[in-house]
């Protein structure tokens, strides 16, 4: 078939400066994005294309008695209706780690909104009408909604006959995975403690709420295969899950990354990918599927809600003695990333502190709640909310300033983690806290600064005009967190980069081709910068990401600049070697430096490390092009021991600290965050502008789950009660404060350019900092997030 409208094209970006790493070069896709020309997956269009629609379960847990598609099929304009029975092969499930998720429900639905049937029709309205005509009879089953109902002796099993590799070590089949971390002797340490504080904390279910809903276009190919244009976080992981269900070899499923409207973990799992391909192959026509916002709330996994039980002890001179905790994550109906979330929650469960005696248990449940999986900072976010509340409590018990107490116990390079792993690169936890604390506080009562009348836009309640200053109390809170960077626990976490260098129109040009999913983070900007730095060119072409090149791993775990950036750097270095070989071959006899000196590529020339120019790249290359495709890996990690949690499980840690300043209308329970200052160590800022953008964006996602964001699941029916942007609220520009950012660059010698993954750490400490500030303003204990007005008014 022909190429659809919206097919991504190569983007060439030049630079008048060196445009290398460390500069705030601008996005190569910026112009396309501000003119509306950048094609997102929902913008794809193909002549003669059909629209796909998914019929989803209206109940959370039920046996499917019957499905009748006859009326839907009879509707004019309908080309296909498919159910489980129409799946072409024996592979009918998919999943990131455990293949437990049915492509279409088989015999049973396990959560509200599970896909049951799919339709292709000539207009979205026709497809909707057809889906509405499919008759599904359900026999409802009791719902499993929490730890008690999941692990009761007579509990219905969410998944009968599990045979995944976790089932052998979990205490109940409704537990996906369990990871203990045991180090030292907590009982003995407790004896040494002068102060012990306990707490039970609840973390609500957060949604990624990326603005571009799930969508894609599947185009059948002449060879019997399919070409999928898709917004995802990891093309090759999708491919590995899609191809077997279609019964096609991977080479016959071509995937091209379309524009991605944000991700934040929500595109790590498949959504409509297989459905669109199935319909395209069935009808022989291109099929586009675009979720609306309602469906998007059912179409991707959410952040795990959690219950966290903590006990912290300290001596009277303020040293932590021990931490004992139990973290219960609700994974919902399917496993998704739950095992990795458990691993992170457990291994990072005490936070960035020195504690020798630790007893941690983290589990994820199978329930009939919405499936939960990856979201920015997973596992670590929930734990940070709880341990930072505990640190404040304990500081108060000891009678030490809260920031000082953290600094007194802060980890540093050389600290041994509860997993036994030494921290082998800078860990400036105390310094980050010092920096956020040292920033000047915003002036009081800014709402009066504009003129005679109170400016309600600067007060809690905002435009709703609920206070002119009455009841408003300011509070300040601090928090710091630790996040692992990259895929952990022995995962083979590699990326591939293909780099070519050639002369085009009299100028040397580098082309970078990876399968990295650009989801907005700016990876494409950084790749061009790396190529300029390593190859001395100004013109860099970024090839669209697709599966014609090896895997770049996932755009998650703060790993892309580190790992795919590392791969681009590595491939550039290999290209450089080849270019120099050509140079030596052609010009080596003209100058001894070709043989003796360390040679660099700079400003389009081959130069010695002393700066002497040996040749123009244009002359070296002439009409030759040099291309390298190579994989690159970070240092290997190990699995955590299943009984003790010991193991060098992580490759790198990332740290951020926040200070939140809030104003709370204590009578109405409304909160205005005035300022959310952040200090973060990024190792090396490859693009300072993008780094700050990541920190600010992550900070606000943390603010959202502190004061407003929560998917509310009915505890009786396990149905989602607020699947819309009317009732799932994310912060507006009137809810967000100024976000001063202090960036530290302490190199990690193990990482490319010394960089440290940036994206997630700011999402961790933001939430507990806001909560601490609200506690400071109100004097309330507040063990749950998000905080709702009724929690603050006691009504």
């Amino acid at each position, binding site marked *: 078939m022909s190429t659809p409208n919206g097919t991504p094209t190569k983007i060439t970006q030049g630079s008048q400066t060196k445009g290398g790493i460390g500069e705030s070069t601008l996005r190569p896709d910026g112009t396309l994005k501000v003119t509306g020309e950048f094609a997102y997956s929902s913008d794809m269009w193909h002549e003669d294309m059909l629209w796909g629609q998914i019929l989803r379960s209206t109940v959370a847990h039920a046996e499917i008695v019957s499905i009748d598609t006859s009326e839907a099929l009879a509707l004019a304009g309908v080309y296909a209706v498919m159910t489980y029975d129409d799946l072409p092969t024996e592979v009918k499930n998919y999943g990131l780690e455990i293949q437990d998720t049915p492509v279409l429900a088989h015999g049973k639905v396990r959560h509200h909104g599970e896909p049951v049937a799919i339709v292709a029709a000539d207009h979205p309205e026709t497809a909707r009408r057809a889906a509405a005509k499919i008759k599904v009879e359900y026999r409802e089953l009791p719902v499993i909604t929490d730890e008690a109902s999941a692990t009761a002796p007579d509990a219905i099993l969410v998944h009968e006959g599990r045979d995944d590799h976790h089932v052998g070590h979990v205490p109940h089949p409704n537990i996906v995975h369990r990871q203990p971390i045991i180090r030292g002797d907590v009982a003995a340490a407790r004896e040494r403690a002068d102060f012990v504080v306990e707490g039970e904390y609840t973390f609500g279910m957060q949604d990624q709420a990326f603005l571009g809903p799930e969508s894609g276009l599947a185009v059948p190919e002449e060879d019997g295969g399919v070409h999928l244009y898709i917004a995802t976080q990891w093309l090759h992981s999708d491919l590995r899950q899609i191809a077997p269900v279609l019964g096609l070899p991977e080479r016959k499923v071509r995937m091209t990354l379309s524009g991605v409207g944000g991700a934040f973990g929500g595109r790590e799992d498949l959504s409509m990918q297989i459905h669109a391909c199935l319909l395209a192959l069935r009808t022989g026509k291109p099929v586009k599927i675009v979720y609306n916002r309602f469906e998007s709330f059912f179409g991707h996994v959410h952040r795990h809600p959690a219950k966290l039980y903590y006990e912290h002890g300290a001596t009277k001179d303020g040293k932590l003695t021990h931490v004992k905790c139990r973290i219960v994550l609700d994974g919902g109906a399917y496993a998704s990333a739950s095992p990795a979330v458990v691993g992170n929650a457990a291994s990072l469960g005490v936070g960035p502190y020195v504690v020798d005696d630790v007893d941690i248990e983290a589990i994820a449940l199978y329930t009939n709640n919405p499936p939960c999986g990856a979201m920015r900072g997973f596992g670590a976010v929930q734990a940070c909310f709880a341990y930072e509340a505990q640190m404040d409590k304990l500081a108060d018990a000891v009678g030490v300033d809260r920031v000082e107490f953290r600094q007194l116990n802060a980890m540093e390079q050389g600290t041994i983690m509860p997993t036994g792993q030494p921290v082998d690169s800078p860990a400036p936890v105390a310094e980050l806290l010092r920096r956020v604390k040292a920033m000047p506080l915003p002036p009081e009562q800014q709402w009066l600064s504009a003129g005679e009348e109170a400016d309600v836009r600067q007060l809690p309640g905002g435009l709703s005009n609920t206070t002119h200053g009455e009841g408003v109390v300011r509070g300040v809170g601090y928090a710091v967190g630790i996040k692992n960077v990259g895929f952990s626990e022995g995962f083979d976490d590699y990326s591939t980069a293909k780099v070519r260098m050639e002369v085009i129109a009299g100028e040397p040009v580098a082309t970078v081709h990876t399968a990295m999913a650009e989801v907005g983070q700016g990876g494409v900007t950084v790749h061009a910068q790396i190529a300029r730095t390593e190859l001395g060119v100004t013109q860099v072409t970024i090839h669209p990401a697709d599966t014609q090149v090896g895997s770049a791993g996932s755009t998650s775990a703060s790993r892309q600049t580190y790992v795919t950036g590392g791969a681009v750097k590595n491939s550039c270095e290999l290209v450089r070697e080849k270019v120099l070989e050509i140079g030596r071959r052609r010009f080596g006899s003209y100058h001894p430096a070709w043989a003796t000196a360390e040679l660099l590529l700079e400003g389009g020339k081959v130069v010695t490390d002393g700066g002497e120019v040996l040749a123009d790249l244009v002359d070296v290359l002439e009409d030759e092009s040099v291309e390298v495709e190579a994989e690159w890996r970070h240092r290997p990690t190990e699995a955590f021991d299943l009984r003790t949690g010991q193991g060098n499980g992580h490759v790198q840690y990332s740290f951020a600290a926040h200070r939140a300043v809030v104003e709370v209308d204590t009578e109405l329970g409304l909160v205005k965050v005035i300022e959310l200052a952040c200090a973060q160590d990024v190792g090396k800022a490859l693009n300072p502008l993008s780094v700050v953008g990541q920190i600010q964006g992550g900070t606000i996602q943390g603010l959202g789950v502190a004061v407003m964001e929560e998917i509310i699941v009915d505890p009786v029916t396990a149905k989602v009660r607020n699947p819309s942007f*009317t009732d799932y609220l994310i912060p507006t520009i009137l809810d967000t404060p100024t976000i001063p950012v202090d960036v530290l660059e302490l190199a990690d010698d193990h990482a490319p350019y010394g960089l440290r993954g940036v994206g997630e750490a700011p999402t961790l400490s933001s939430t507990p900092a806001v909560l601490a500030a609200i506690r400071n303003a109100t004097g309330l204990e507040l063990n749950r997030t998000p905080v709702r007005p009724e929690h603050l008014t006691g009504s």
Partner: protein
Amino acid sequence: MRVNFTVNGRPQEADDVWEGESLLYVLRERLGLPGSKNACEQGECGSCTVRLDGVPVCSCLVAAGQAEGRDVVTVEGLADFAKQRGEQGGCASGASGASGASGSCGTSLQDAQGWSAKGQDSQTGEGTELAPIQQAFIDAGAVQCGFCTPGLLVAADEMLERNPNPSDADIREALSGNLCRCTGYEKIMDAVRLAAARQGEAV
């Protein structure tokens, strides 16, 4: 049904429009103008913001038939729209208002650029003429995934037309109907301040 209206200065005709279709759907799926984004279809995110007879509206909440005979500007036409306004002196009269001189609100060009890394350029789409607000969004790093960007640009451009020297609170109020999930809005604030300052400088 058939719907006729003007989009970005050009007469457009859409045929076989289902009566329940929104203006957003017609723009995106029938007129080949997918710049306006569909992110919520319930007026809660502003990604589909267009100007309807000059007024910023959510195009997802305008029934296609309601656009009959009317004038629509989308992000695809924003650069031309801003250029014409400039030629007609539309913003110049506003920008020369007295409030600009007092410095009581708004940000000077120097301040607005204070945060910005110097010596950079983007040649992508070279030759594409951009509205000042579009250039400012690129320069300030206000674009990440970019899905909210078209709607924000239309809303911000209209605000600067009405209020060339906005305070921070004014910017926040004017853009409070546009959700962004990537940036935390700080760089969007920077971008609007920058565009306002450049606009003031140009007068």
